[in-house]
Structure formats: structure tokens, C-alpha cells
């Protein structure tokens, strides 16, 4: 399923460059070697995932990290569209948000391919976040999602 030699592709859907850089900084130490792609809003994320326009050569990511507060198409809409697309719905997806999960989100989190993680308020908490993402990703691979 995943070629052990190639780095895993991670799509980060995040409009705040500060958050993107914090993720970049911390993903350097992430266990499976990885390559990060960034989409700065929901429309761009879906274009990437559907390999439209300038993304025609893009490979489907092995993991998606999705912020909820996004310009244009927001995270909720992106999530709904991903879960309705047969080729995308199995990609492990981390909802990465600074707010508490609400009911809209909880119904998606019932799926084993989705997990919800809060954005760390302190730098030290990033290590825990990365561990959680790693555990979630490995678990998703085992389940063959």
C-alpha cells in the first residue's frame, strides 16, 4: 500500500503561514520521512486532491491535516466533500483546530480515518501533537483505510 522507500505525502490545509511554519518546524522530526504540501484555503485543497489545474501532476497525499477556519471554502465544507468522494474518503485526516470540537465535527470523528487535534498553545505541546498524529497515522495504516 505504502512504498516504504518514498516519503509519505502530507497535505496541510492551513491559511495561517505561522501555523504552517510551526508544523514544518516540528515535522522535521516526524518519524516517517515526509513531504509537505500546503493548500492555503479549501478551494485550493480540493483542487489539489482532485488534481485539477496546476495540480494535475500531484500525487494523492497519505495524510491530510485540515484547519477548520479557512478562507473561501471552510474546513467543514472540505471535510464533507472529501468524505463524499470515494477515492478521497479513506485518506487519514487530522482536523487541526484551535476551537473545541462541536457536534458537526463529532459525527465525522466517529470514522476511524478522522481524528481531531487541538492546535498547541505552547511550543512544548507540539511534540505531543506529533506523537498523536504518528499514532493515528500508523493505526490508520493497520486498519487499511
Amino acid at each position: 500500500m505504502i512504498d516504504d522507500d518514498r516519503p509519505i505525502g502530507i497535505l496541510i490545509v492551513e491559511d495561517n503561514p505561522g501555523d504552517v511554519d510551526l508544523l514544518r518546524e516540528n515535522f522535521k522530526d516526524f518519524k516517517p520521512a515526509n513531504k509537505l504540501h500546503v493548500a492555503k484555503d479549501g478551494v485550493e485543497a480540493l483542487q489539489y486532491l482532485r488534481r485539477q489545474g496546476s495540480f494535475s501532476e500531484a500525487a494523492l497525499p497519505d495524510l491530510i491535516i485540515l484547519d477548520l477556519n479557512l478562507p473561501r471554502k471552510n474546513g467543514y465544507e472540505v471535510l464533507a466533500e472529501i468524505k463524499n468522494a470515494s477515492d478521497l474518503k479513506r485518506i487519514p485526516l487530522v482536523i487541526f483546530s484551535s476551537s473545541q470540537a462541536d457536534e458537526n465535527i463529532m459525527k465525522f470523528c466517529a470514522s476511524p480515518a478522522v481524528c481531531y487535534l487541538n492546535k498547541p498553545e505552547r511550543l512544548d505541546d507540539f511534540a505531543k501533537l506529533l506523537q498523536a498524529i504518528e499514532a493515528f497515522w500508523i493505526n490508520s495504516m493497520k486498519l487499511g483505510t
Partner: protein
Amino acid sequence: MNRGIASSAADAAQNRRSHTKAMLNILEDFVQEKARLESLQEATLNILDDFDVARKNVERAYLQLQAAAEELERSNTELEQFFYVASHDMQEPLRMVANYTELLARRHKDKLDPESEKFVAYIIDGATHMQELIKDLLLYARVGKNQIFGPTDCSAALRSALANLKIAIKESGGDSKVTHGPMPHLTADFSQLVSLFQNLVSNAIKYRRKSVPAAIRIEAKRLRKEWEFSVSDNGIGIDMQYANRLFLPFQRLHTRLEYPGTGIGLAICKKIVAQHGGRIWIESEPGKGTTCRFTIADNLGSREGGAIQ
């Protein structure tokens, strides 16, 4: 015969006169009666007019009241949404400030002199404190949202609050004791009641006297139409001149260094008690202890009444 004729003519004239007089009398009565009826009719019409004016006034007042109620509900909803969005969006920049200050400090660890390290600590402390304030403001704004009032077992609510405080109670010292009397059943929102007990007991633990083991007692007593609860401690106490101020959001009597926290707890308690139609107040003597009392209307009355052990 003539006399008779004359007499009968006179009689006839007399008769006519009296007839005419009677007719005139009747006519006069009739005119009077007509006038009376007319004035009665006018009075009735006036009353009807007045009634109509009054009805229209009431209708107008009702519509105004309805519009005001709708406006109030709309502005409340808007305020709540504004509050939520503002609180959420305000967290983001603070997260950036805290994270990047730390990242900067981490990168330049060896180059920072002790004073610069102190400045870094101040920035991080400021940002995290602001995050706490926003979170607590959000917590305060949310009191009463999605509330469900129903028959509530106060002893279950208290048990739940004490379970949440288990670690805090344990860490306050092995000799700390929290005890309570019989608790009633009443109509309340269970989770608000848990939060109320939890805030009050948590304050009692937090502001304990270091020299004596904390002894906290929770009681409930039945008054005429309500239950009065009390949470008493043997802690440091409060100067009563500041007692009312403590129920306002973010009002504190101590620095964050002495006692951590934002000062939202008692404001939340006051809001919860207000949702239940009750009052809350403090009785205290510095150095001896504090009793916080609150009331909750006993709307279950005798149906379930009575204290349940």
C-alpha cells in the same frame, strides 16, 4: 237644550284642551325620553369609542412588547455569536505570540542574557494569561446555553463535583476534609449545579489556611419557598468590604502569583444561581473562614420534597 248645547260645546272645548294638554304632556315626556335615550346612546357610543381606543392601545402595547422581546432575543443571539467568534478568533494571534516567542528563545538559547530570558518569560506569561482570560470569558458567556431544567438530585451533583476535585483535594493535604449534610431533590440544571458546587468547594480548598487542615462543610436547609445551601470553610477568609465585588467577572483580591486564576469562578456561580432564580452571598471573617450561601427555588414543593439522605 241651548244650555245643554252650550254646555256640551263648552265641555267639548274643555275636553279638547285637556286632550291637547295630555297630548302635549305625552309629547313632552316623549321628547324627554327621546333626549334621555339619545344621551344614553351617546354615552354608550362614547364608552364604545373609549373601549376601542383602549383596545387599540392594548394591542399597540402588546405589539411593541412582542417586538421588544423579539429584538432582545435577536440581540442576545447575536451577542452570543459575537462572543463566541471573538473569543475563538482572539485565541489565534495569542497562540502565534506564545509559540513564536518560545521558538525564538529556543533557537537563541545560548545567546540570551538573563534579562532577555526574563523578557521572554513575560511575553509568554502575558500571552498565556490572555488565553486563560478569553477561555474563562467564553465559559462565563456559555452559562445557561443548552440548559435543561429537570428534577435533580443535589447529592448526585455534589458527588460529581467532588469527584472532579479529587486531585485538588488530595493535593491540598492529607488531613483535608470535605463533608456534607443531607441534600434535597429540586428542579435544576444538573451540570450547572455540578459546576456551582465545584467552583465553591474549589475556592474553599484554594484559599485554605496553611496552618490548619482544611475542613469544608456543605449543607442545605429548607426555607419557606426555597432551599438555602451553604459551603463553609476554615480558610483565610475575606475582608467583607470586598465581598460583593468578588461576584463580578475577573475581580480578584490576590495577585496571580499568590493564588493563580483569572477570577471568573464566583461570577459563574452568580450567573448559575441567577438562572435558577436564586441569590448568592458571602459571610466571612478574615483568618477564620468563609461561608458562601446560595438559594434555589423549591419548585418541586411537596411532590418530591424532603431532604434525602
